[in-house]
């Protein structure tokens, strides 16, 4: 009998160069979504230091905020959040059946806008850490 050859998934992701706009949007949205959930959990964890005492809380926050890495991570978080929001809006529109034909353009627009917002807000974010 004939058999067949299963190429598996690895080969598929080896083709990333050939992915279309909608696929990138999906991948980015997924990635940013996961980062946001991750952040949500850490965020609450950090905030719960308030339960141990006022000073600890203020202290934790301020130590964290004085670290450059944390500031950079925050910029990253902003980028992730902004992209997720913008693309999320794009997806909401798609769900409503609005502007399906421009779906690739709106993805590029989300990317560009995210970039712009992030760049513009860098000064605010890193202010005071140096």
């Amino acid at each position, binding site marked *: 009998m*004939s058999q067949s*050859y299963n190429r598996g998934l690895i080969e598929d992701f080896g083709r990333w160069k050939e992915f*279309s706009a*909608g696929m990138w*949007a*999906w991948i980015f949205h997924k990635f940013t979504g996961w980062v946001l959930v991750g952040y949500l959990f850490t965020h609450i964890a950090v905030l719960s230091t308030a339960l141990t005492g006022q000073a600890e809380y203020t202290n934790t926050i301020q130590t964290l905020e004085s670290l450059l890495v944390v500031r950079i991570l925050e910029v990253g978080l902003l980028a992730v959040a902004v992209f997720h929001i913008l693309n999320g809006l794009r997806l909401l529109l798609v769900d409503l059946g609005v502007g399906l034909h421009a*779906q690739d353009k709106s993805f590029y627009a989300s990317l560009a806008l995210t970039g712009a917002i992030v760049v513009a807000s860098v000064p605010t974010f890193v202010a005071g850490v140096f």
Partner: protein
Amino acid sequence: MSTQVPEQVEDESSADTETSAAQQARMEKKRQKAEERERQAEEAESAAAGEDTYLLKVFRYDPEVAGKQEPRFDDFHVPYHKGMTVLDALMYARDHYDSSLTFRHSCRQAICGSDALFVNGSQRLGCKTQLSDLEEPVRIEPLPHQEVVKDLVVDMEHFYDQMESVEPYFQTNDLPDGELEEQRQTRENREKIKMSTRCIWCGACMSSCNIAAGDNKYLGPAAINKAYRFTMDEREGEDMKQHRMEILEQEHGVWRCQTQFSCTEVCPKDIPLTEHIQELKREAVKNNLKFW
């Protein structure tokens, strides 16, 4: 017109003799030109990477043939002519270089849906893709996400199963009484389902969809589109529509779609698949709201 028009035939043959001198000179010129072309064609063929050839890199695999059990890519240099499609090139390679090169094809006009291939990184019909639109070398592979039977032939069983799982046939309880009476359908309604009826079962969309690749139970864009074709057909009636929505609303139905749009992009029949899927999602939500 008539098939028997003697005068006209006379015209034709007299034209034959009258212009013979000029005609002959002309034919002579033609012959020379033709010879010239032939010579060029031969040259092109021998000069493997000549300007007028296209380089194809074709995926090869055969579970039974020793050298092909490990998949590999073969190179074929195919002489180009204007209008040549990927399918033409494959046929040329098969008929002139390697008769064991295997792929499905039949109609050569984008209607039988048998030659969906993965060409330079996207799902296309071989017969509907002009070589001149592609970058060289042209890499031709079987459809991703499906198991390869041999060379470019993939196993379509799963695709057929999905298509047939959505009750892909017209069902209605009230046909007109008169024997020779058709059901009525408004133009608008026929227009609405028109695009969805164009599917040729090529499987390109399924192959392009990441979700379908990961979730074997996902109905997939083509089957959902098939269901759309009936769900939106007013001739079937409300009850049937409810029934169809139930099929579509299952966990592996419309909800699995993540609006990646790859299906819509690759569909050779330009069916707005994502749009249809989204419309069904909204339809499903509307349906369910009643019970909340």
